[in-house]
């Protein structure tokens, strides 16, 4: 075969694939197997690992801190996902209009997406400052006395959710925009000739034909929200942290603060199982509401 002179075919395959495959085995596949094994051990990095069977899973089942974090993560998901999807859909509809300067708006909406979570977290800590922050100032203008936000365990999670919607809005909007631009123009023309008004066109053409994008956005944001971490880790003040603990935060605490490697690995597998199941269920039920054609 051409191109194989000098070095054999397998030599070339090895040349192109070896660096990547070796890395994948050592740094991804190996750790996955190792992590699965860790779930059966009690290990603090210093003394010898002790085999304890399913004790980690038993302990997790009764771990109040973990279930509180689970509950916070679910609250986050229930409030964050509908807000960000609806707002992004409306924003995308606006940006899809033939308005002058819409490229500038898109540029602006995407800035928080490229900014690191650490920077966003510290900026919004200041914006949510109860006494001198912007949020409570603007609330005071309309006569509302703003809460203590990140200082109060009862409100910290809401501040985190608002910040997350703000950061991810541009990301989901751009996804919806791509979906909108994929809807064939002649559907709208045909509907206009039939006398359909704006609302009917939106309801009968845009929304159904956008469901594949909505489905994709929903899957992605669910997977990402189960793994919510940086904002919940960095934003709340010390006393408010207990009101905003999340699953990944528990994993990080157990692994790197209490050095409980086996227990942390167990948590990570439970999280994976939850994400995997929910994604699978969504794929199973997608034909109930996702339209690939009218």
């Amino acid at each position, binding site marked *: 075969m*051409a*191109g194989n*002179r000098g*070095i054999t*075919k397998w030599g070339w395959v090895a*040349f*192109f*694939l070896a*660096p*990547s495959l070796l*890395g*994948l085995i*050592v*740094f*991804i596949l190996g*750790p996955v197997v190792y*992590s699965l094994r860790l779930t059966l051990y009690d290990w603090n*990095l210093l003394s010898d690992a002790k085999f304890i069977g399913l004790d980690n899973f038993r302990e997790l089942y009764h771990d109040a801190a973990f279930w509180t974090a689970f509950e916070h993560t679910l609250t986050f998901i229930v409030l964050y996902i509908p807000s960000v999807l609806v707002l992004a859909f409306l924003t995308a509809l606006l*940006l899809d*209009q*033939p*308005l002058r300067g*819409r490229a500038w*708006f898109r540029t*602006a909406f*995407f*800035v*928080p997406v*490229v900014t*690191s979570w650490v*920077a966003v977290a*510290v*900026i919004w800590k200041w*914006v949510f400052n109860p*006494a*001198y922050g912007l949020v409570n100032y603007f609330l005071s203008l309309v006569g509302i006395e703003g809460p203590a936000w990140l200082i109060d365990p009862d409100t910290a999670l809401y501040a985190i959710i608002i910040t997350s919607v703000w*950061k*991810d809005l541009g990301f989901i909007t*751009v*996804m919806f925009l*791509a979906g909108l631009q994929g809807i064939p*123009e002649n559907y*709208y*023309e*045909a*509907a206009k*000739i039939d006398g359909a008004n704006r609302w009917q066109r939106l309801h*009968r053409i845009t929304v159904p034909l956008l469901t594949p994008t909505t489905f*994709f956005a929903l899957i992605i944001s669910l*997977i*990402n929200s189960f793994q919510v971490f*940086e904002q919940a880790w*960095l934003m709340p003040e010390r006393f408010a942290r207990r009101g905003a603990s999340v699953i990944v935060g528990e994993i*990080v605490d157990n692994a*790197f603060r209490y050095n409980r490697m086996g227990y*942390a690995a167990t948590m990570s*597998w439970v*999280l994976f199982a939850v994400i*995997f199941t929910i994604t699978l269920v969504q794929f199973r039920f997608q034909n109930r509401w996702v339209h690939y054609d*009218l």
Partner: protein
Amino acid sequence: MNEARKTMTLDRSLPREPWVARRGAPLALQAAQYAVLIVLALIMLVPFVWTVSTSFKEQSGLATATPQFIPDPASLDAYRTLSDRMDIPRLIFNSFFVTVVGTAGQVIFAAMAAYAFSRMVWRGRDTVFLLYLATLMIPVQVIIIPQFILIRHLGWVNTYQGLIIPSLFNAFGVFLLRQSFLTLPRDLEEAAFIDGANRFTVFWRVVLPLSKPALATLTVFNFMALWNAYLWPLFVARKAEVMTLPVALANLAGSSRYQGSVEWNVVMAGAVITILPILIAYLFAQKWFVRGVTFSGIKG
């Protein structure tokens, strides 16, 4: 839906006439649309303006009942305090070094593997590729604990190699580039082979130059992910010599107190320094940022 479907099918054969397509909305509606967009843009950008403005204030000028967007007096105090407290040039260098080397490595390894998966025929290829795809489903939290144990075992904690090497291998890049390589016509390669080129020359001189959009998308995506990374550097780069900007900024926000109150001007100065490079990169390569983020579905 059914009636709609019928009429749609009938009219689908209508010729596309751009001049009748989606004409502008009525004037009042357009004004309302602009108003909403402007308010949204303000909500998106004002926190950044507020950040820059705060970074140029003095500590005593922070506690104002009405927000002051123009610092009065404007001062570089915050930046001075910041550079007294941490080695800013070192942090910037570390972030750039880790990001540039990591991105280059990721893209090269991914491109090579993608070539083997798309332009060569060999036994077991699809099985191995499936293995790559399977790793995309594993959340980072599952891998990060054993990775840390491995890095610690190798004595790589607080080293550049510990920061960079584990992040070099991800299947996402292989997947993205393979898709792009598959679209190239085979004739081009054949012509090069006839001229006596070997596999590597073809890969380097023919395949890569023809796949610039996919390579740019992946490069920008990796650049952004590495520049903004927090979780992994938090565990393996705690020493100042190898620390990157996000970890330093998080530490700063957690420790920056002056007589009991947070020095927000200093923290915001740190935020400005962390954001500025990626923001400039974004403004110059906007298209690729948008593509990279939307293709992957993974946020920064």
